[in-house]
């Protein structure tokens, strides 16, 4: 509870409400982005392991019998095909991770601006921290 002299008497105006709502939306989006990025990074690790395995296989009789998961079945493909597919997938995921990181930075910047506005208006009466 705030002491009487810490109380803030500014009324909540419509634009303040809009700012608060926008902050809440950005926060939700931020958490979603962080979750998505984590799962993409797990996928990337898996692909990394897969390409390492492919390289270690070397050439020989085995070079023509890599099982590639397509849909829910496995297709026999050559080592080069498999490596190509891996590399394309890595590129795609890496692009997604990069764009998510960019979006996250934008959100954090906008949140900082909203924080200055709202703390300026309401001081201690409002709590905009995450934990």
């Amino acid at each position: 509870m705030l002491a009487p002299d810490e109380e803030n008497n500014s009324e909540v105006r419509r634009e303040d409400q809009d700012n608060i709502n926008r902050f809440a939306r950005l926060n939700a989006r931020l958490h979603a982005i962080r979750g998505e990025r984590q799962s993409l990074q797990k996928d990337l690790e898996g692909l990394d392991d897969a390409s390492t395995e492919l390289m270690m296989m070397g050439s020989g009789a085995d070079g023509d019998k890599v099982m590639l998961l397509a849909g829910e079945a496995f297709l026999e493909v050559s080592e080069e095909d498999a490596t190509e597919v891996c590399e394309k997938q890595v590129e795609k995921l890496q692009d997604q991770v990069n764009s998510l990181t960019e979006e996250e930075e934008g959100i954090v910047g906008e949140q900082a601006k909203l924080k200055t506005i709202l703390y300026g208006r309401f001081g201690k009466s409002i709590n905009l921290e995450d934990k």
Partner: protein
Amino acid sequence: MSTETALATAKAGEIDDGKDVPNMSLLDITEGDNERGIPKAKFIDDVEAFSSTFEPPASPELLIGACSDLMNKYRNYEAQLQQRQLRLKQKVPELEKSLSLVRTLLEKQGSPDSTTGMARYSLADNIFAQAELDYENNNTVNLWLGANVMLEFTYQEALDFLSQNQERAKKEMEDAISDLAFVRDQIVTSEVTMSRVFNWDVRRKRNTKESTTSS
């Protein structure tokens, strides 16, 4: 029953015992809807003025009660939307997998590398069977449409069909996401309204106490 009728027919605090107790329906604290019929929480510019618009003036308890009812309904709707979003989130990658399989088949058909290939498909849980695929001559795939129905498509038809489904699923997901954001906004607005009404009441009681002790 659509959401708006469900919310509008709920009334809070209806007592008929001869005294003139104000009834606050959810229509009093909402204004308008979004595109899919979810009501928008009213933003109250001045709590005191708003409570005097009722005859007799609405007590803080009534206002807070109505707000919290509204918030519960919003939270229910939020949970529903989150379920829907989760379901769609699983559907889109599945469609993507099927699409990539059809594209691979199309590619292999065009490539001069090999005319046939071996594939291992899932026969039952944890059991895979071997199959020889005729890349050159095969032109069709069978797609599972649900309800024990499977339909044969050519590669191109399958691509079109699956892409269409994928577009629809993505659009539904976008709708669900935007509805979710909208509902969260309304929850925040009602929470803020609730605390403002509470604070206004606390200040009012404090002022009346001060004026009675000073007189």
